[in-house]
Structure formats: structure tokens, C-alpha cells
């Protein structure tokens, strides 16, 4: 069920309350971009699911989706600057009309293409051939599966999602994903509540054993991603009275060695309108990149953006706790 976003910051989405500020914890250290090797494009908030932890507040009711002219602008930037990786996310990115156009055109630039896929979307009308489409275009598929058991998965992602997800993984395996070396299938673990993820290598071994034994499913890697205390998850934290203890947990687990590997240092995030952000979380908080005259994909200036100072706030504790967290799993 979709829940309302807490609006408390001058009409913008709320930030979590923290016992210490992120800036204070950084101790005056400047966080700057190192280089841009990934263009992460959030093509919209429309999704066939409405997960309880979703930082996008995505759902079937959302109408924000990227238009063709913005897709073209992303393709131009990708080709012009030879950015090595295109990371397509949403919502369920497959649901926008130009998804397949975006992928097939982006492939011509030679970029590696990642799609963040929720598994169940392949059972929607017109989407049943997604495994074949992914395979033909050699997309790296990153799938959400918070646990290898039904109870935890359905509690986070909705009733019936686990069974569909298992069926979808079998279909991906059937076309070679997780088996053929060219077809990479990675899974994402998110905690099903207000706690930190386990050690990535340990839980990956559990997933590999349990998914193989129970369902004969294979995959390449498992990424653990910390739940970000913003949007729908922050709303849940507040309603369940877990905000204070969760933020204290994140602050106490602050790990300085994660800072140099934070994903915001190597990517630029684009929203459905073409606006630029340091990461998908800042995008949802409406915290744009701190670069004058280059805040959209239409005025993309690689030189300026590659040296920019990253915009931080207290939600950043979500990426620096424990072994750290990024769209590619742990960072330390």
C-alpha cells in the first residue's frame, strides 16, 4: 500500500532526525566527485509494486515517467562523453514506453547497461518476453529479493511477490542468466525492517545455498543495501517508532573507511525530467547537484560535474554504516 511522504522541509520530502549531523561526523572533510563512470537514470516512479522500504515512493498510481526528448538527451551524453556504464532504474523502468528504445540505442554507444529489475514486472501485460529482451541486449540484471523465504519477502514487497519472484528468476535462468558468462544476474538484499544488513559474503552464501536447494536457482552476486531513512521507509520508521533507534544505529555504525568508496563519487543521477543529482536518494529528496548552469542533462558539463562537491545531509548515514552501502552493495 502506498503511504504518504512526510512533508516537513519547506514543502520538500523530509530528512531523518539524527543525534549527530553527517557533516559533523565527516569532521570537516570535503566529499567530492572522483570521476563519473556511471550515468544512473531514474526513468520514472511508476511501478507495479509499492514496497514498504521504497525510497522512490514508487507505485502503480504514480504518473511521472521520462519522455523521449529526455531519453535522447541521456543517450547524447552517454555517447558524447563515453561514459562506461548506464544504470537504468525506477520505479519499474520497463514500464515506460521508451524503455526498449533507450536500451537498444544505448547499446550502440558500447556502454555496459544495468537494469534494476523488480522481477514481478515480467508478468505484466506486454512484458513476458523481458528475459529474452534482456539476454539479446546482454543487460546486467540487478534484481530485488530481500530474502530467500516468503514471509520476509512478502512482508516488504507485498503479498504474492515471493512466488512470482521465484518464477521470474527461473525464467531468467532459463535464458542463461546467472549461468552464461555474458548474462550477469545479481540479487539485492534489503533488510526487512529497521536493522543493518548482514555481512555481504555471509548472506550471499546463504542465498546461493537456499535458492539452489529449494528452487534450483543460480545467480552471480548478491549485493546488500542498507534501507535509506527517507520517503516511504522514513514514514514507516516514524509510524513504528523506530526512527530514533534506527538513526542512532546508523550513526554508531559510521565507518570512515566507507567514505572514499561512496557511489556518489563516481556517478551522476538523472531524474525523469532530466535534472541532475549526486545520487538517487538526493534525487528523491530534491537536493540537486551543487553546480550552477549544469543542473540538467540538457546542459551536461562533464568537466564541472566531475569535480563537484557532493551535497550531503543526515540520510547519508545510510551509505556509511557498517561495511557501507551502494547500488553495488558494500563499499568497505
Amino acid at each position, binding site marked *: 500500500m502506498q503511504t504518504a511522504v512526510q512533508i516537513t522541509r519547506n514543502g520538500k520530502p523530509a530528512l531523518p532526525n539524527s543525534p549527530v549531523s553527517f557533516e559533523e561526523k565527516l569532521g570537516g572533510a570535503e566529499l567530492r566527485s572522483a570521476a563519473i563512470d556511471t550515468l544512473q537514470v531514474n526513468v520514472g516512479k511508476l511501478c507495479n509494486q509499492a514496497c514498504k522500504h521504497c525510497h522512490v515512493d514508487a507505485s502503480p498510481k504514480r504518473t511521472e515517467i521520462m519522455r523521449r526528448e529526455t531519453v535522447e538527451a541521456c543517450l547524447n551524453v552517454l555517447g558524447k562523453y563515453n561514459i562506461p556504464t548506464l544504470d537504468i532504474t525506477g520505479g519499474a523502468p520497463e514500464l515506460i514506453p521508451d524503455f526498449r528504445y533507450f536500451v537498444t540505442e544505448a547499446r550502440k554507444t558500447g556502454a555496459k547497461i544495468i537494469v534494476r529489475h523488480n522481477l514481478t514486472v515480467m508478468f505484466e501485460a506486454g512484458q513476458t518476453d523481458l528475459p529474452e529482451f534482456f539476454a539479446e541486449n546482454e543487460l546486467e540484471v540487478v534484481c530485488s529479493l530481500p*530474502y530467500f523465504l516468503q514471509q520476509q519477502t512478502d512482508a516488504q514487497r507485498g503479498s504474492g511477490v515471493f512466488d512470482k519472484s521465484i518464477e521470474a528468476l527461473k525464467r531468467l535462468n532459463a535464458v542463461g542468466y546467472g549461468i552464461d558468462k555474458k548474462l550477469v544476474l545479481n540479487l539485492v538484499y534489503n*533488510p526487512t525492517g529497521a*536493522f543493518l*544488513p*548482514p*555481512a555481504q559474503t*555471509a*548472506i550471499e552464501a546463504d542465498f546461493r545455498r537456499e535458492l539452489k536447494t529449494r528452487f534450483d536457482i543460480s545467480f552471480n552476486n548478491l549485493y546488500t543495501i542498507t534501507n535509506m531513512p527517507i520517503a516511504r521507509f522514513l514514514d514507516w520508521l516514524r509510524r513504528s517508532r523506530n526512527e530514533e533507534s534506527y538513526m542512532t544505529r546508523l550513526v554508531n555504525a559510521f565507518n570512515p573507511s566507507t567514505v572514499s568508496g561512496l557511489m556518489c563519487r563516481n556517478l551522476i543521477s538523472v531524474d525523469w525530467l532530466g535534472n541532475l543529482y549526486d545520487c538517487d536518494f538526493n534525487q528523491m529528496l530534491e537536493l540537486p547537484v551543487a553546480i550552477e548552469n549544469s543542473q540538467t542533462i540538457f546542459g551536461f558539463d562533464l568537466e564541472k560535474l566531475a569535480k563537484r562537491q557532493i551535497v550531503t545531509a543526515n540520510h547519508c548515514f545510510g551509505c556509511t554504516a557498517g561495511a557501507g552501502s551502494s547500488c553495488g552493495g558494500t563499499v568497505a
Partner: protein
Amino acid sequence: MHYYNEEDLARFSDIGKHKPELFEKFMVWYQACQEDGALSKREKALIGLAVSVVVQCPYCIDAYTNSSLENGSNMEQMTEAIHLAAAIRGGASLIHGIQSHNAHDKVSM
């Protein structure tokens, strides 16, 4: 006012106020016991949870429930650990019944 306050868990170090050297020694020992060794952190967290339930420490139960989750355990595994601890406790009570039987036999014809 409760005898147990959730906030007191965060004040644990206050117990070192009047004898810091003993508390420091305890903490070094305590932390070392949590680390990966011949047993994994997850196995240790489950043992910690089982012991916490048996010694009926609400602070420890909170801490080791979270620790078990953060080490990848699920409720089925945690509940099995709790049952094992409770069963051992039950068995420990029952075995004392032999004391009763012995006492009975001693005074009976």
C-alpha cells in the same frame, strides 16, 4: 516508572564510573567474544540470544535479537535457538526431580 528502562542499555558504560579498570577489562573480553572465530558471528549471535532468554535479561534479548537479524538469521532459526535454550532449562529443572526421588526413597520403606 519501570524497573527496566530501554534507554538504560545505551548507558551501560556508566557502570564503569566507579571502577573503570574492571569495566574496561570486561569490555575487551566481551567484544573479543563477539568476533568471528571457530564459530561465526551469526552462530555467536544465536547463542547470545538463547542465553539472553534463559537469563531473562531484557537488554540482552533486545541486543541479541537485533544482532541475530543483522547477521542474517531469520525468525525460524532464532525461535529454534530459543526453544533449545528453554528445553535445556526445562530439562535442568526435571533432572532435579531425581533429587526429590532420592530424598523420597531415603525416608520411605
